[in-house]
C-alpha cells in the first residue's frame, strides 16, 4: 500500500536505528502518547532494538484505557435498555465496567453493534426508526471530527432517534499534567501524528517552550517512529527544544481547518476524568448546548455514578509511565487479557496488552542480516 508499506522498510529502519545509537550519547527518556505508536513499538520490538540507547515510556495514548469507569457504566446501562441499539467502535467492547462489559450485556439480551464509522450508526438509526440508536463517542481529537459530523448531520437531517454518549479527551492537557508531576522523568515527546493531522501542532509550541522539551509530531510505522525518535534525540543532544514535524506527508501546522471548525461548532472543552490519572481540567470535549438533544446522557437522564477502581489495578501508574506493565505485580497473573483488571490490559492499544501479547518472550535480537 502506497504511503504505508515503504515506511516499514527494514533497510531504512535499520539505518535509522544505527543513526540513533550513534547520536545518543546518553539514554534519553522519551514518551509517545499514542496507542498506535505504542502498538508499533512493542509489536516490532523497537524498544528491544533500541537496546538502551533511548528509553521509551508509554504514555496515556489509548483513549479506551483512559475512559473513566463512569462512562463505561453509563454505556452499559444504555446498552441494556430494550429500546436501544448501542453502537460502538470495536475497541470498547471488552473494557470492564464495574460489574460487566458490553459483551455480557449483549449476552443478557442487549443489542450491541460494532460499527466502523459513526456514519454507520447514523445509518442504523435511519433504518430502525422504532429504536433509539446510541453511539459511544470515544477518542482523541482524531475521532472528534467524525463524531462531530455525525451529530451535525443528525440535526441537519432531523434524525431524532440518534444520540451520542460522548467521552472525548484531548492530548495537550495530559502532556502538561505529566510534565507538571514532580517525579517526571520524560525529556521529550513523540506527538500523535493523526491527532495532529486534524489539530496541527500550534498547541504544542507553548508546551515545548515552557517545559523546554522537544516534541516531534510522528507517524505510526516503524520508519516514522524511528525517525521521530532520531529527531528528538538530535534536539536533546544539541540542547534544542521545539516542535518538529516528522509526519510531513499528513500533518501541516494548522491541521485540517474545516475539521477543527466543525469540532468547535459541535463540541466545547470540558473537564474530564482520565481513568487512572484523575480529573484534568479542560481536557475533554462535550456537546454544546445547541446539540443537547443529541446528548445521550441528557436524553436518557443518566445519573453520575461514582465507582472505585480495583485497588490492584495499577493502570494509573502504567498510563503515567511510572510503571512498566511487567513491573506490575498483577501482570500476567491476576491480570491478563482473558481476565483484565483494568483497561490497559483490555484495549489492544493498551500498554499492558501490548506487552502481554507481544513482549513476553524476548528472543535475542538478530544482528541485522543485510537487506
Amino acid at each position, binding site marked *: *500500500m*502506497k*504511503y*504505508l*508499506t*515503504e515506511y*516499514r*522498510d*527494514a*533497510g*531504512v529502519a*535499520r*539505518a*535509522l536505528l544505527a*543513526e540513533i545509537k550513534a547520536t545518543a550519547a546518553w539514554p534519553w527518556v522519551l514518551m509517545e502518547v*499514542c*496507542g*498506535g*505508536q505504542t*502498538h508499533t513499538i512493542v509489536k516490532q520490538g523497537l524498544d528491544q532494538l533500541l537496546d538502551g540507547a533511548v528509553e521509551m515510556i508509554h504514555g496515556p*495514548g489509548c*483513549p479506551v484505557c483512559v475512559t473513566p469507569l463512569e462512562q463505561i457504566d453509563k454505556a452499559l446501562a444504555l446498552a441494556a435498555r430494550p429500546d436501544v441499539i448501542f453502537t460502538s*467502535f470495536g475497541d470498547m467492547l471488552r473494557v470492564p465496567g464495574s460489574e460487566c462489559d458490553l459483551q455480557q450485556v449483549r449476552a443478557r439480551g442487549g443489542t450491541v453493534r460494532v460499527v*466502523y*464509522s*459513526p*456514519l*454507520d450508526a447514523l445509518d442504523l438509526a435511519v433504518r430502525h426508526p422504532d429504536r433509539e440508536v446510541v453511539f459511544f463517542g470515544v*477518542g*482523541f*481529537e*482524531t*475521532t472528534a*471530527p*467524525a463524531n462531530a*459530523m455525525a451529530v451535525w*448531520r443528525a440535526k*441537519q*437531517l432531523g434524525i431524532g432517534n440518534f444520540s451520542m454518549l460522548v467521552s472525548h479527551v484531548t492530548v495537550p492537557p495530559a502532556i502538561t499534567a505529566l510534565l507538571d508531576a514532580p517525579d517526571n522523568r520524560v525529556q521529550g515527546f513523540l506527538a*500523535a*501524528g*493523526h*491527532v495532529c*493531522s*486534524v489539530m496541527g501542532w500550534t498547541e504544542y509550541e507553548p508546551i515545548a517552550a515552557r517545559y523546554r522539551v522537544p516534541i516531534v509530531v510522528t507517524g*505510526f510505522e516503524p*520508519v516514522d517512529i524511528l*525517525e521521530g525518535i532520531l529527531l528528538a534525540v538530535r534536539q536533546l543532544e544539541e540542547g534544542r527544544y521545539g516542535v518538529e514535524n516528522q509526519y*510531513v*506527508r*499528513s*500533518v*501541516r501546522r494548522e*491541521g*485540517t481547518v*474545516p*475539521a477543527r471548525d*466543525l469540532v468547535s461548532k459541535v463540541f466545547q472543552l470540558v473537564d474530564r476524568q482520565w481513568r487512572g490519572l484523575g480529573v484534568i481540567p479542560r481536557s475533554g470535549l462535550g456537546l454544546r448546548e445547541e446539540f443537547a438533544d443529541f446528548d445521550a446522557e441528557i436524553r436518557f437522564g443518566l445519573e453520575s455514578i461514582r465507582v472505585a477502581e480495583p485497588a490492584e489495578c495499577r493502570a494509573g501508574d502504567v498510563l503515567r509511565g511510572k510503571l512498566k506493565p511487567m513491573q506490575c505485580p498483577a501482570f500476567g497473573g491476576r491480570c491478563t487479557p482473558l481476565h483484565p483488571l483494568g483497561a490497559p490490559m483490555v484495549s489492544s*492499544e493498551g500498554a499492558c496488552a501490548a506487552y502481554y501479547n507481544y513482549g513476553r518472550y524476548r528472543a535475542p535480537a538478530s544482528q541485522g542480516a543485510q*537487506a
Partner: protein
Amino acid sequence: MCLGIPGRITELRDDRGLAMGTVDFGGVRREVCLEYVADQVRTGDYVIVHVGFAISRVDEVEAKRTFDVLREMSGLEELEWMREVAERGPQ
C-alpha cells in the same frame, strides 16, 4: 491517535450536501466522507482515512522529498519495497 490509513480517491460525489467519495486502499474500497478535505482534493489524490473520514490530504511532494532523504541516509540503492513493486507490476 491511530488507525488512519492512506488511500486513493477514485470517485467524488455529493450526498445531500455532504462531500463523499470512494477511496481505494490497496485494492479494497470503501465509502469515505471527504467533507473536511473537499476544497483540497481531486480524484487520484491520496488522503488519510480514519473511521470513514478523510482527516488530511497526503502531501505526495513532501512525502517523496523526505523519503529520498531517508533513502540517501540508508545508503541503499533500491529499497526492498520498490523491488517488490517492480516484480509485482502495476496495481
